[in-house]
């Protein structure tokens, strides 16, 4: 009887714990899921750049400076008044290309739409003055079509539009503020080529995503 009572009590406690943990995990997962609207994932990211709005716009519109800044990372080719072709190189040496239609709505606001690329995307960028003279807030909203499995695979593999957006904002901030994106991949070390390759994987993980 006592044994049975103990078993039922243990079962009850285990079940209650499992339900509690499950609910907490689900709640946490929901908190970390991006918003979904009409089949689109919607993410909003922002970064503050310690420069005036004109300086930030100047970075985008000074083609020579932009090309210099993007060298080694991506190339941009203007196809017509609105359409651009972008070829991005990842750290492993692979290339991804897409065509985007970019519309400037007013000074400091632009939209883009990826016509053909790895994933349909719509995006919007707004520039706003940051408080206390801290420069300019770049606020980006990205909508992309994906599914839960594809998104999970992208997050694990570091190939996901949200991660790419956060990377891009961080890069843009660094390029505007200090003219370079710092890289320590080629610093000397006592590693063998195999160890260096494994360390580069770790570096990529520590470089990808995070806060914008």
């Amino acid at each position, binding site marked *: 009887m006592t044994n049975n009572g103990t078993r039922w009590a243990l079962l009850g406690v285990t079940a209650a714990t499992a339900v509690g943990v499950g609910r907490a995990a689900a709640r946490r997962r929901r908190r970390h899921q991006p918003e979904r609207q009409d089949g689109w994932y919607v993410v909003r990211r922002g970064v503050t750049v*310690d420069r005036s709005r004109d300086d930030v716009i100047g970075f985008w519109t000074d083609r020579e400076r932009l090309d210099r800044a993007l060298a080694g990372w991506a190339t941009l080719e203007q196809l017509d008044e609105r359409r651009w072709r972008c070829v991005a190189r990842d750290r492993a040496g692979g290339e991804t290309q897409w065509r985007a239609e970019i519309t400037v709505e007013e000074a400091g606001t632009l939209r883009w739409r990826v016509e053909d690329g790895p994933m349909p995307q719509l995006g919007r960028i707004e520039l706003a003055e940051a408080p206390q003279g801290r420069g300019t807030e770049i606020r980006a909203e990205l909508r992309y079509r994906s599914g839960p499995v594809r998104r999970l695979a992208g997050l694990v593999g570091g190939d996901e539009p949200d991660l790419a957006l956060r990377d891009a904002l*961080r890069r843009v901030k*660094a390029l505007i503020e*200090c003219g*370079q994106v710092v890289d320590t991949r080629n*610093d*000397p*070390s*006592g590693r063998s080529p195999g*160890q260096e390759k494994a360390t580069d994987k770790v570096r990529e993980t520590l470089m990808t995503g995070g806060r914008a």
Partner: protein
Amino acid sequence: MRALCWEGVGKLVVRDVPEPRIRAEGDIIVRVRASSVCGSDLHLINGYLPAMREGDILGHEFMGEVVETGPGVRRHRVGDRVVVGSVVACGGCWYCRTEQYSLCDNSNPQPVFTEKLWGHSPAGILGYSHAAGGYAGSHAEYIRVPFGDLGAFAVPDGVPDDSVVFASDAMPTGWMAADFCGLTGGEVVAVWGAGGVGQMAARSAQVLGAERVIMIDRFPDRLATATERIGVETINYAETDVLEALRELTAGRGPDACIEAVGMESHDVGPTYAYDRVKQAARLQTDRPTSVRQAIMACRKGGTVSIVGVYAGLVDKFPLGAAMNKALVLRMGQMHAQRYIPMLLDRLATGEIDPGYLATHPLSLEQGAQGYELFEKKEDGCLRSVLHP
């Protein structure tokens, strides 16, 4: 070139590695003439900061000679004798503009680890693990210094290498610790840890107006050196109850400011310390906050606790109630090298602050592992081993 590499927990080996190259317009390459061990390296060597990779080159406190400059470098030329701040700062972000260089937004190229751990990523640091950007360190013949115009400073003539090397880190860290205390003149300041940073903090507090400085440690030779070199009072915590002694020395008030220059591997005696060691060994807490607890408990009501010892993660039994109810000011952080170094070089040149005596063990690069062992075990009166590659 030869370099001292981390090869696993507690294991350091000198290896042949490629020489660094200019990677960006603002880079400079420095031939290292003196590179000091630092207490914060011990946390990396002993695996308390889990972001080291086999083959990483250690060392962040150094000086040397410029041998190559990037095309964008304006302030330095080949042949300049320079001391380099350990913190890397871009000079272009809001934090750099407001002279909070150790919080630079752009100098840590691998910010995700610290963003997850701390909410935001502070600046990169040379030779300080992949959490701080994965930069190669200074225990090598040559080192690449990014943003060289901002991070490297010409050394005044006549100041020896083994003295100016401490302007790279120990001096600015000690100065910032004293600066945090908001001294206006006549205060009593207590300093936990009589190592290089603690002694520089004590001297800085005197320069900034403290009337009395009391140092706390357990090594009689370190305490004796501090008394002899900078004229402080001392408490040996292995023999004396620190809180009682500080109350007595201040007629019941407690020190006006308490500086913690020990960090996450702090030591004590008694059962609480044993408990902390077990928890840290079991990874139930990452840091042992023994001296921070004491500093908070000892500090006078409304006083300041200044923390420059390095902490990485979570601590147990943090006396937040004491800090809150005594209305303490808590200030802490990695030092803003670029803000303090020029001013400290002036003070070094006039002899107002002279850290040369900290370099008790000048050694070759090949003796690096031995240098760290002497330093960690505090053997042979070692305050700092300084490597000469």
